[in-house]
């Protein structure tokens, strides 16, 4: 009895995603060697966020999963960010 619902992703698509990821990696390295001051972290984190989005949605097949699971994943990231922000309410104002 087949019980699989996973979408099959072609090799081509996967290799394309890898190329984008590698490109983004070199962009990060490149960006941090310019001195963008305080923005470097922001840019590095944005790129890392983009990369993880690609990995999550394609490599991890999230793009083809149920809406529920996608919401849950988003929820976990949001929860984490909220916790960090709240902790900084303490540290930023000390």
């Amino acid at each position, binding site marked *: 009895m087949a019980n699989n619902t996973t979408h099959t992703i072609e090799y081509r698509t996967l290799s394309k995603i890898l190329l984008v990821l590698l490109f983004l990696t070199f962009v990060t390295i490149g960006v941090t060697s310019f001195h963008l001051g305080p923005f470097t972290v922001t840019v590095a984190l944005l790129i890392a966020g983009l990369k993880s989005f690609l990995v999550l949605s394609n490599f991890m097949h999230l793009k083809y999963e149920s809406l529920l699971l996608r919401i849950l994943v988003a929820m*976990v990231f949001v929860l984490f960010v909220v916790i960090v922000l709240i902790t900084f309410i303490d540290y930023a104002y000390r």
Partner: protein
Amino acid sequence: MSEKAIHVEEHRDDEASKLGMWLFIFTELLLFGGLFLVYSIFRAQYPTEFHQSSLELSVTIGAINTVVLLFSSMTVAMALTAIQKNDQKRALIFIGITLFCAAAFLFNKYFEWGHKIEHGLYPGSDLMPLLDRGHLLYFSLYFFMTGLHALHIIIGMTLLIVCYFKVKSKNINDHDYVLLENGALYWHLVDLIWIFLFPLMYLIS
């Protein structure tokens, strides 16, 4: 009636296993999340020290490891594609490549850590307490975070080795591949964490 009972005995619910794996990944994300929280707070307090310390790390090794992990992440995804297409041989090759990449990553790490340890920079060494607070915290975090990440690589490798043999014995096949799917998910998690570790540890300015 009886048929139903038997059905339950062999009950298999891939959706459930996959959801379970995702939930487990959530806990792993938050496990590292705690560390990233610690990192961000110390980082905010000692920006310059963190920057100086990060210069001690080799961006090249870090970049190579990033590429290796991204590549292995793709190959493990391809292994899944291969299994779905009932292409056992390719699946084995892809898992093999992934495992090779994992080993290469660890080898690099070993090299990197060894270098630091040679210079007397490791937790508990005589040199560490002489550093000022910011540097000390950076290296503590460096060792702890990359160490825990390496541990996860080893766990992921174990899982993939199991998958390898199950693919070989056709226990994982195009009708039943949820184990490989979960192994791959776990491997992507390891990659995901590294995606954040790399810029935060190696590329600070």
